[in-house]
């Protein structure tokens, strides 16, 4: 049984795995950054409530909590990096592939891939960034078939083009749907095929 250090799972294990993977991938010649959160996993007493207010008052450097992840320098590397993770580092299972639109002002979308290693029990989050105006990224569906539906969903929700995707149809939305709903600047439709949306 893996060691549990927080009520939501073995976070130290996952963080150590991220550090290890970062070194291994750097050694293999890929350009990437290891992003480590600078807040403790468990907040000291009283901080959970006041953290944000105090951070604003002091105008201090940005703080963040949560998972460590690898940020790839180039989104074009994604399939090759993930293939390396699968074949050399033992991350046999891709559990999630998605995207995040950080804010309306942000010029970039974040792509997020989550991998699991069933031997070491660790998981690894790999991120990359693509510009919103030209969101084109190679698909990893041929490396991990699990990414197939996830990428189709991200494509229709964020307007990302996954080049080389074997089946680039819409998944959840109707075929004639306009717009990308999960983008922050999405405007809700007034009507769809003559049926009012409000």
């Amino acid at each position, binding site marked *: 049984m893996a060691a549990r250090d927080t009520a939501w799972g073995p976070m130290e294990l996952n963080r150590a795995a991220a550090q290890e993977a970062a070194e291994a991938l750097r050694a293999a010649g890929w350009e990437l950054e290891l992003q480590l959160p600078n807040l403790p996993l468990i907040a000291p007493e009283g901080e959970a409530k006041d953290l944000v207010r105090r951070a604003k008052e002091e105008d201090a450097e940005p703080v963040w909590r949560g998972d460590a992840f690898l940020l790839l320098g180039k989104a074009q590397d994604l399939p090759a990096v993930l293939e390396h993770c699968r074949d050399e580092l033992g991350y046999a299972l*891709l559990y999630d592939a998605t995207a995040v639109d950080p804010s309306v002002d942000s010029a970039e979308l974040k792509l997020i891939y989550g991998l699991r290693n069933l031997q070491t029990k660790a998981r690894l989050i790999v991120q990359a960034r693509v510009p919103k105006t030209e969101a084109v990224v190679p698909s990893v569906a041929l490396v991990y078939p699990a990414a197939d539906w996830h990428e189709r969903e991200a494509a229709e929700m964020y307007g990302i083009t996954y080049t080389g995707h074997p089946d680039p149809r819409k998944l959840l939305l109707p075929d004639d749907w306009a717009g990308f709903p999960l983008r922050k600047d999405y405007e809700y439709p007034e009507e769809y095929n003559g049926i009012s949306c409000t």
Partner: protein
Amino acid sequence: MNSHPAARFDDKPGREVELDVATQDCMIHMGPQHPATHGVMRVLLKADGEILAGAQTHLGYLHRCAEKIGESVDWLQYLPYTDRYDYLAAMNNNLGYSLAVESLLGVEVPERAQYLRVIVAELNRIASHLFAVGTYGLDLGAFTPLFTALRDREEVLELFEKICGARLTYSYVRPGGVMNDAPEGWLASVAAFLDGFEKTWHEYWTLIAENKIFIERTANIGVLSAEQALAWGCSGPMLRGSGIDWDLRRDQPYLIYDRLEFDVIQGVGYRGQVGDCFDRTFVRMFEMVESVRILRQCLEQIPDGEVLHEEVGAVIRPAPGESYVAIENPRGELGHYCVSDGTKIAVRVRVRSPSFCNMSVAEHLMPGAMLGDAAAIIGSVDIVVGETDR
């Protein structure tokens, strides 16, 4: 591994027809209104005679914009929506989301709340598996399993009604703990339910494992190999049914699961091969037994104390950051990827739902099966469409 449904679906099938007759592929639409799809999902089947040559799944008939809502309402206001994507295991969904929010808040809930969470989650797992096995019987043409399963499921729902007032959508587990402590005598009634359930479990097992028709329709049907299950990101009974020893409760322990003793059930090829439809049902059946074991230990160990963390109020402002937290839902790995910028509204609430990933492999189990097996294969995945479409 790299072959793809679209490619396979549109090409002429490679199967040689032995008889010298002209055959034509027949397209059959199964759904969106079809009782065996467990909701509204459409599977387009390509049949050559009675043998399936391919299948294509169409989703989206219950897309309810959960992820957009997640970034439009407060952290706490989103809780009732988590009930509604997997409505058969709403307690587990509440739990998954609450843990994700707590990981950004950096709070660990009081011990009593952790035990209560495990108790309701495991009770919900029993209710969900009962329903899964019951409706699976219905898919295969047997009414008895469903009606007997509903009998015991109602007992669980009654327990939930006592603790939170709702039958289906609970919002009982919330960020910071649980909504309220268990009413007096509730833990005793859980124990009483377990005593009764242990006896009736054997009835269900007899209905399934001794039923010749059930065995014929599930054994050696829809065999999912371990490699396929891994490649397609399966989880839960789907992954374990294929003989992979993986359970988040043990391998990424959350809450107090590391203090509890239980076995991870794997498919063993009980009536056929490892990874067939029967094995997935086998895993579900015996997971209920393990849940009973877990519940008994929880009832023994549960301490007194607070059930809600004092620093978590009505308006939550988690620290900025990104966090992925996964729990073992009855259907598999339910993960929430939450991104916060320190305000009271999330930047992103991504739901990684188990049915979505498990369903993506189902269409690859179809080629070569008989037309009648399509319902058996889809039913054995145990999908909840609210979760595949969110």
